[in-house]
Structure formats: C-alpha cells, structure tokens
C-alpha cells in the first residue's frame, strides 16, 4: 500500500486518540470543516453532488501534472464538511490506483465506522465510494 497513505492515516489516528468523548471528536470534525476552503459558487453544481447525504456534498476531482488525483469538496453542513475534509486530507494527491485500492482502516480506528453504513444520513459511505470511483476512472484514462 502507498506509504504516504499509511502515514496520513496513522497521523489522523494519533490526532484523534487525544479526544476522549464524542464532543471533542465532533469539535475536531467541525474544526476541519471550517478549515476546508469553500468551493466557489460556480463549482457547486448539481452534477458534483453526492447522493445519499441529507446535507449537500460536492466533490470534484482532477488529475495534476504528476498524474495524481486532486480533490476539492464542500458541504452546506459543517459536520459533513468535516468528514469530507478528513477524506480529502487522506486521499488528496495520491496516484489513482492507490486511491482505487485504498484500505481506509483509519475510519474504524477513530470510531467513525458506524457512520459508514450506506443508510447513514451523512453519506460518508457515498463519499468513499465516489472518491474510489474517481481513482478507477483516472486509472483507466
């Protein structure tokens, strides 16, 4: 597996290990949401919406000059935005193949796995799927 991906996941697990209760974890997510740059209005298109979120989540991907995938994301709900920011932090700038095949073990480690069910209102599952789909798509080209 991609070493960078491993390191990033370890870092996040380390960070989250400081938080004891849900409140601190959510505060951290909210913080990450606030730190993620908002998408410009013209990028907030319906075609970039992820299905299955109660709040709206926009996710864009492109390939940079190094053939790595660059993600941009936003949401109108701050916790959701924090979740997507977390995902971007882990996967942004990696090669398509490594994204497509990524094992995102940190999600369970930091206790977010219960949010992973496809029926959750937050759409974490859809985010992960959509990012991997981008990975697959950019590999193919």
């Amino acid at each position, binding site marked *: 597996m991609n070493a960078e991906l491993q390191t990033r996941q370890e870092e996040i697990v380390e960070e989250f290990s400081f938080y004891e209760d*849900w*409140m601190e974890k*959510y*505060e951290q997510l*909210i913080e990450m949401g606030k730190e993620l740059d908002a998408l410009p209005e013209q990028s907030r298109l319906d075609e970039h919406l992820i299905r299955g979120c*109660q*709040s*709206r989540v926009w996710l864009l991907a492109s390939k940079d000059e190094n053939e790595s995938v660059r993600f941009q994301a936003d949401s*109108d*709900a*701050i*916790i*959701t935005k924090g979740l997507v920011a977390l995902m971007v932090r882990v996967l942004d700038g990696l090669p398509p193949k490594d994204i497509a095949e990524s094992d995102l073990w940190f999600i369970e480690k930091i206790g977010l796995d219960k949010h992973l069910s496809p029926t959750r*209102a*937050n759409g974490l599952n859809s985010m992960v799927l959509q990012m991997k789909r981008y990975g697959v798509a950019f590999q193919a080209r």
Partner: protein
Amino acid sequence: MSSVLDTASIRGQFPILNREVHGQPLVYLDHAASSQKPIAVIEAQREYLSHYHSNVHRGVHALSQQATDAFERARSTVQYHIGAAHLEEIIWVAGATDGINLVSQAWGREHIEAGDLILITRMEHHANIVPWQMLAKEKGAKVEAVNILADGTLDEKDFQKKLKLNPKMVAFMHVSNTLGTINDAQRLTKMAKAARATVLIDGSQALPHMMVDVAELDCDFYVFSGHKAYGPTGIGVLYGRKSILEAMNPWRGGGEMIDVVSLEHGTTYAELPHKFEAGTPHISGAVALGVALQWLTGVGVKSVMEHETVLSAQARHQLGKIDGLRFIGEAPSISGVVSFVVEGVHPYDIGTLLDQQGIAVRTGHHCTQPIMDHYEIPGTVRASFGAYNTLQEVDALVQGVERALKMLR
C-alpha cells in the same frame, strides 16, 4: 406548568424509554415520524402470534374463527374510534400511503379525466402529493396546490379561489407533520363539498393526537397509519363513505376480495370491506392497532392533546429565546410539532449533535419538499411530542440545542 397526564405511569408502559443512546438516557422527540409502542400493544401482537394465529375468514376450524373474531373486532374498534356509520367503511391498508394510493388509483382512475383538477395544498406530505401527480400524468389531469401563509396556516382565500375551478378531488392533511398546523378540516370539507368535490383527508398526524369523527367531518375518505398512533408497523386504515366504496372498482386483486372466480365467465367481487382487502391481511397488526386505539382512549385523547400542547408551548417559549432561531410553522391552531431552523447552521448538524446527547429529533424535509421550497430552506429540525414526553425532556432539548449551537457557530 403541570401536566394533565400521569407521565410517570405512562412512561412505565413504554419499554424503549428505559434505554440509553450514546450513553445518555433516550429522549425520544420523533413521534411524528413514528410513535413508540406501549406494552399493551406489543403484548397484543405477541399474544396473537403465540396463541391464536391462523389465517382469517372462511376457516372452518376454531383457531381461524378466533383470529377472524379478533381481526373483525379490531375493525369495529376503529369504526367506533372514528365515528364511522358502518363497519364496512373501515378498510385495512398497509398505512396512510397505501390508503391514499388505493383511492388515487381505484377511485381516481374511474373519476379523473383529462383536464380535471385535483386540488391539494402546499403543506402536504409526499404521500398526498405523488399519488395525485402520478394519476394526473396518466390522465392528463392537473394538480394544483393551495398556498400557505407565512405562519404556516392554509390560505383559505386561495382555497376558495381554487375551489371555483371545480376540482373533482380535494385532498388535504388534517394536521401538518412539518408545520404543526391544525387545519379546520370540517370547514374545509364543507367548502369543498359545496363545490361538489370529493374530499380525502390525510389524518396521519391528527388521529394520534385528537378526537377524529368522520361523520362530523363529513369527508369521503380519511386515512391514517397505525405506527404513528401507538400501533404496529405495516397497518393503517382507509375510511371511505359506503356509497362511494360500493360504487368503486377494487384495486388489488386476489383471494378474499372475490365472490366467484372463473377462467371462462370472469370474476365477480366480494362485498365491502373485503372487496378492497385482497390477500391475507396483516392480522396481528390489525389486532394490535385495535389495542393501540383502546389504549389511547384509556389515557384520554383530549388529555394527550392538552399535554402535548403544554410541551410544545414550553418548547417554543424556551427555544424562541435562542439567537437566530426561527420557527417554521407558527399557526394559531397548532399541534405538538415544533420545527425550526437556525440562521447559518444546517439542521443536519444540530440533529447530529442532539443525537450524541441522546436526543432523537428528525431533520430534513420530512417528506414535505414543497414546504421547504416555500420557505427556501434545506430542511428543519423537528421535535415532536407524544403522550410519553415530559417537560424535563423539553428542557433537555433546549439545553441540547444550545450546546450544539455553541459548538457549531
């Protein structure tokens, strides 16, 4: 403020209220989505399945007769509960949605023609919108919606105006699941009938909270779901005026709803109510719904409504002090539903942080997207009360919202 209900004793009857969520005691404020069930109802279903389940009707053996008796007794419990003149006006359906679809398809296909108007309101639940849209599309008919005023009351002038267009069907909700608005169903029905329309009332949010009398309302159809009225899932009721039901074709075909089935000479249908009840019914659900209505009568529907009014008034009073908080739905006549948005904060975020504190509210469009369009909001946070909720829980809600907002802004 003191309560008209002995909530301690009532709460003791709801096993789920003993549980914790995320390490916090459960504060269940999502009654409008689905009510919790008292032991009496849960046990009625268990008892039925454990000791006298059998398929109903036409059975020659004792079990079948016992099951049939219990099933039909539940039907007459419903009849008396809603003041229907005839037992056979009570049709078991899977829920309010199923009931409205039955009417839109069985009655609608026969009576709605190209160019006809179906009048609904802008506050309807999707269950009372989509079936009419589907029918209108099939028939080339039109669906128009009566406006709502800023406070969430129905715009009666607009109603009057649109009645002049001679709608064939007027379908509206008795009580709004999002705004809390209690429509004056009797008045609206009278106006609609004066315009010679057929009237369907969606009573999903009324029946669990107030006295409903279909004879007084004088409507043609009335529907509700069991699971919102302390009853089980998968069962609901369609009341229909006898003369209309008799003239209607059946909707679902199958066993129970036939008189004679012949491959050569065609099929003739059974009498009411069975004509509309094809297949093996949800027997345990019907039996337990009967018990739920009896339970509600035992507690006293009027007291329940008074109690819920006290809770929602208190919630509105306290939440109203929060900076940037705006209620969606402030009709003078209002039920135990409190919907609100907070400036600059997404309802989903509030709901998520309330959940972490053990407080169950619903967020989103509550299956009423046209209301969201009307107020130009993505959704609301909705707290809704039932007989088992308390003033302490209102306090918990208010503190929970405050705590969430502190984190969010």
